[in-house]
């Protein structure tokens, strides 16, 4: 049996030689979800990273502890990775919108009128849906939510987004997802983040280890 300084390991009674693991099929693991958080009220949702999970509700459980364990936020969204449509990446001074493939006329969205309530209802009835749009302003930064558009497909959503948000630049990359695919934290559950700032014991820095090491060294010169 494996003998360890960690008593928990000894209690597991693990055999010395690892049992030969059965070969797993490719991708034998949970799918991924992409996580966005809002740092404070009114701030845009920003991409923070992925989690593996079997379903969106479990992804949310994981995202909460992965990405707000140490830094508080006011809200969190999770989206199945597969539900996100991604444009090509372009140069740091360019706009990804300038490189969208041209859609055939039948699919291209008609120029909408924001105040057209009747038209809006008809559009939804005809199968259009809300899409969330995220921009990456600079490589190495994170995608940030810029708003919603209404469209009949992800490709059409990008075209509408170009009309609405296309003036912004640079836009190195754009993500879009059906709003229905986004699991959003409840406003009434925002207290689940309320005590995070007080949990200094979660930060290595609050133990002031380096100070103590230096003090020890100075005293033992």
């Amino acid at each position: 049996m494996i003998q360890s300084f960690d008593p928990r390991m000894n209690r597991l009674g693990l055999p010395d030689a690892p049992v030969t693991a059965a070969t797993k099929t490719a991708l034998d693991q949970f799918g991924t979800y992409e996580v966005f958080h809002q740092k404070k009220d009114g701030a845009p949702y920003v991409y923070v990273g992925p989690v593996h999970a079997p379903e969106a509700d479990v992804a949310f459980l994981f995202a909460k502890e992965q990405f707000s364990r140490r830094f508080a936020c006011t809200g969190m969204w999770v989206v199945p990775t597969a539900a996100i449509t991604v444009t090509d990446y372009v140069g740091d001074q360019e706009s990804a919108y300038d490189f969208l493939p041209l859609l055939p006329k039948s699919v291209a969205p008609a120029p909408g009128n924001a105040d057209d309530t009747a038209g809006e209802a008809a559009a939804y009835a005809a199968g259009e849906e809300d899409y969330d749009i995220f921009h990456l302003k600079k490589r190495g930064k994170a995608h940030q939510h810029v708003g919603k558009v209404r469209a009949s497909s992800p490709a059409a959503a990008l075209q509408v987004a170009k009309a609405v948000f296309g003036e912004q630049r640079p836009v190195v990359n754009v993500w879009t997802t059906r709003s229905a695919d986004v699991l959003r934290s409840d406003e009434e559950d925002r207290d689940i983040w309320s005590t995070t700032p007080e949990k200094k014991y979660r930060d290595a820095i609050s133990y002031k280890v380096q100070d103590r090491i230096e003090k020890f060294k100075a005293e033992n010169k």
Partner: protein
Amino acid sequence: MDPKLDLLYRLADDQLILGHRNSEWNGLGPILEEDIAFSSMAQDKLGHSLQLYNLLHNLGEAEPDTVAFTRNAPQFHCCQLVELPIGEYDFSLTRHFLFDHAELLRFEALATSSYEPLAQVARKLRGELKYHALHANTWMKRLGTATEEAIERMQGALNFTLPYALGIFETTEAEPEIISSGLFIGEAELKSRWLESITKILAQTALDMPDLNLLTPVNGGRYGQHTEHLQPLLDEMAEVFRLDPTADW
């Protein structure tokens, strides 16, 4: 014992021991994300125990570290549920589900305790406990409706754990005064709220709720009677502290 001390020791010891137990999954959890989530919640429980030991300290008891690390099993007031070894993940999740529902409802009630310092702590913990219950419910619903193996294991864990969970609500001689002074609603009322709360979740699964009237609660913990598992846990938990009780860390 003074009713305040009696209540606080029970609450604090439950949090400390279950927090330590659940932390034993750290690094061994089923998948990375769950490992982090479960460890975080274990850490929350240790944080809760510290706040409650601080209340005890303000009432004249010893320092939190002294209280946590220098007592032996017979001086602990935790229920036996929290001291059981972590076992398989089905058991640990089921204990988490049964305990944390009681915990959430207990602190909800304590938010209006006549003892204001405790009421303040209870109000502060609300968000954390809400997440803990959400975590437990999500897994219970998911595994309780998953494969035949998952359902069978969760049912087995539920049947095994429930008698211990009933021990959460064991009362002490201080109970009448705890209720009459408005410190707390009392264990019987808590138990009935808890039963309603867990039944609601279990109804959304393929799991059967055993008839509680046929179960014998595992009591004794509130009076210092513990399983053989508590003393080794205390020895392990206090190992570093006992090397140098005055160390600053």
